């Protein structure tokens, strides 16, 4: 699109980039969730291995997957996401 013609609010560029990152993270989250669940869980139950008592497909897909996503959110928010002002008079939280 004609970005050069219309520069607009520079904060929107930050926002758009972060939205794309959010979508990327969700895609990663899905692949991890799906990959471990069906990669390890599709074999017969007799052949399952267990970690901390849980079947390994579940452990990696749901427990480790959850922790990995939390770590990624923390890293992205701290390192990549930018703080932009919303309006002129910013104070502390009142709620």
């Amino acid at each position, binding site marked *: 699109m004609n970005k050069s013609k219309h520069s607009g609010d520079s904060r929107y560029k930050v926002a758009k980039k972060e939205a794309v990152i*959010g979508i990327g993270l969700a895609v990663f989250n899905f692949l991890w969730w799906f990959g471990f669940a069906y990669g390890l869980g599709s074999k017969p139950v007799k052949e399952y291995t267990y970690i901390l008592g849980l079947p390994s497909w579940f452990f990696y897909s749901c427990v480790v997957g959850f922790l990995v996503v939390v770590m990624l959110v923390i890293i992205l928010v701290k390192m990549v996401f930018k703080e932009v002002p919303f309006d002129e008079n910013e104070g502390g939280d009142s709620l």
Partner: protein
Amino acid sequence: MNWGVLIPFIALLVIIFIVGIYAAGRLKESTGFLQDYFLGSRELGGFVLAMTMVATYGSASSFIGGPGAAYTMGLGWVLLAMIQVVTGYFVLAVLGKKFAIVARKIHAVTLIDFLKERYKSKWVVLLSAGSIIIFLFASMSAQWVGGGRLIESLTGLSYTSSLFIFALSILIYVTIGGFRAVALTETIQGIIMFIGTLIILIGTIIAGGGVPAIMKELVSENPSLVSPFGHDGSLTPLYLSSFWILVGIGVVGLPQIAVRAMSYRHSKAMHQAMIIGTIVVGFIMLGMHLSGVFARAIIPGVDVPDTVMPLLAMEVLPAWLAGVVLSAPMAAIMSTVNSLLLIVGSSIVKDIYLNYIKPDASDITVKRLSMSVTGLIGILVFLLAINPPDLLIWLNLFAFGGLEAAFIWPVVLGLYWRKGNKYGAISSILVGVGSYILIHTISPEPFGMHSVVLPVLFSLISYIGVSLLVKEKDLEHLRNMDAKFY
């Protein structure tokens, strides 16, 4: 009646009531009544924002229906529930700062305010308000039924009196306190949901003799319980994956969630909320559903899935702790209902009355009207819930899917795609809702996917297709929109 269980439960209701009333006393006139009543003057900090989103999203089905299904289906259902981790960060990241900034520029208080400025179309507004009122009304009734049933099962009171207690404990503070009261009480409710999950998970693991012992028990009963495919093999990968639309990314389109993405104070609050929200929602979903599966090894042979959680809590915990745990679903239900109440109220007062019936209403009128409409809706839902339809989860999911199909594209593409216009939005809402209802009734789960998947796809196609085919002719609106949105 078991007083050990009841005392923490009653304490919850009392605390929430007091906090709600306290917050109501802080309604500020400075920023304007509407903005404060329906949006808390956009002052939410990170922790409150995270909790209010999680609590609004987490409902009866996270604590009662979901774990009950996990009890029946096994670990496959926990796999499904864990999709919801994505809601913790996705809504805030995608709507994100843009939504918050635009909302400030156009002084939007409701999701529909946003749509109205973006598309400048009476039909977009009326269709959206209509969908919100109908679908959220349905979903609210289901939650009320859940709330009433829960009190009924704990106290032994009749269903109607239980419902009455439930209605009374919510209606008063929501009606007089608005969004601020809702956000503050939801923070407490969110904390209770978190603690309740922790307690029941630990209690269940201990009672079952550790996770390995529980798993062994499950495998010996039916090996499929520990597979991702469900106890009868009915959970196909495609079916489960299709829930990524319904309870994952589609949540962006839910008005009660989206409106929270314009309620925070600064970008730091949004950043914190993404982290806290992801942790809390993931932990609650994992803990509650896993407890539901584990329950099978401890209390086998429960026939009514909805009773699994209450029975489990009473079985594995001392009475007072069971009371704390059973306050969690109560908190979840209350926190969902109070948000829905407010959203439906704002649609009627702000989106319909002030837009089309009486735009020049005085502040006092608006204030009285907001409070009385919110109260009246509550009473109406109460009356409907007395003789309830028996399909709690079904109704709930129906409303979810319908709203997602209606709003996801007009909101998300309206935010980021300049060429999207009112024709695209109107057709997207009509096609989305229409095809969802059609598919849901005529041929549910087409191709083995959840009914919501195709309607979301259809509404995307119509939004883009129609926006490209039919151009917006109002040049002044285009200029205005460009200045504020891009």
